[in-house]
């Protein structure tokens, strides 16, 4: 075992384990000896702004928000790619320019779809 090629690994593993567990153990020991826990209903309550929490945290969001998600994605991703596109525009080959245009036009298609659906009109 001692002469095995994995012995040093085992020693390192034990060292790593001790490195992690020793502070935890010391903290636990310290808490047991010197810091008696003082739990109370208020201390264990969930919310932390001084007021008692009311109602349920498990609320649902309306699925109709998907439209905002899509439109945000169109403008966000477009902006991310348009800037490097514009910077590198003069040095681009025809193939790269075409590939970029396909990508941008795919996003524009989403915008056209949203426009045709009447999403952009303020209701």
């Amino acid at each position, binding site marked *: 075992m001692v002469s095995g090629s994995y012995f040093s690994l085992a020693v390192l593993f034990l060292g790593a384990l001790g490195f992690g567990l020793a502070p935890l153990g010391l903290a636990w020991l310290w808490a047991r000896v*010197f810091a008696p826990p003082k739990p109370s209903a208020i201390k264990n309550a969930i919310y932390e702004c001084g007021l008692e929490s009311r109602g349920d945290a498990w609320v649902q969001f309306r699925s109709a928000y998907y439209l905002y998600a899509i439109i945000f994605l169109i403008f966000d991703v477009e902006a991310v790619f348009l800037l490097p596109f514009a910077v590198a525009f003069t040095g681009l080959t025809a193939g790269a320019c075409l590939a970029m245009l396909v990508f941008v036009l795919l996003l524009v298609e989403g915008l056209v779809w949203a426009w045709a659906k009447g999403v952009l009109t303020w209701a």
Partner: protein
Amino acid sequence: MGVGEGSADLGLNSNIDQNLKIEMGKQGIFVTTIEELYNWGRRSSVWPMQFGLACCAIEMIATTMARYDLARFGAEVFRPSPRQADLMIVSGTVTKKMAPQVVRLYNQMAEPKYVIAMGACAISGGPFKQGYNVLKGIDRYIPVDVHIPGCPPRPEALMEAFMTLQKKIDGQSLTGEDRPRYHDAEATGEFPVPEPGEHDLEPSSNPLVWITPVVIR
């Protein structure tokens, strides 16, 4: 350079002469006790809770900024949650509407916890003492460690209070009769949160921390 080990008796009754300790320190031999080490660590990283009640809070904010730099004392990290805070700086007027929230937040802080009552309002009601809606000092509900007078106290005053608190932490013992409340398993950790009553908060004070003065006419 040699490093000496602390005495094994947790430093509860350190027998080493203070002058001898300083002399040994000059020679590169440092002697400490667990209690001393513990208090040093605690007083050097007192994290205040991030909340302000009134105009004193502006001075508190100034204290943390570059000009006064509370970070020198290890207290620059203002925690937005009572779970992570050690120190509550009651900075400003405590109205009767706000008092339950303040006491509730104090209850939610982890032990050991300290309170600095900053400014005339927090310690006594200050210029608004006669107001029907102002609490006449936060020490009616929670134990206050340091009171700072002033309206508002200057940042230097807050730092002075902070150093006073550090001195207080330094002097606290781990065991024995005079150990602080949080080291005592029997002592309570809960301070009742007052409720808005018909004319005043109910109860109007916590008898554990506040003895209502008797007016002799």
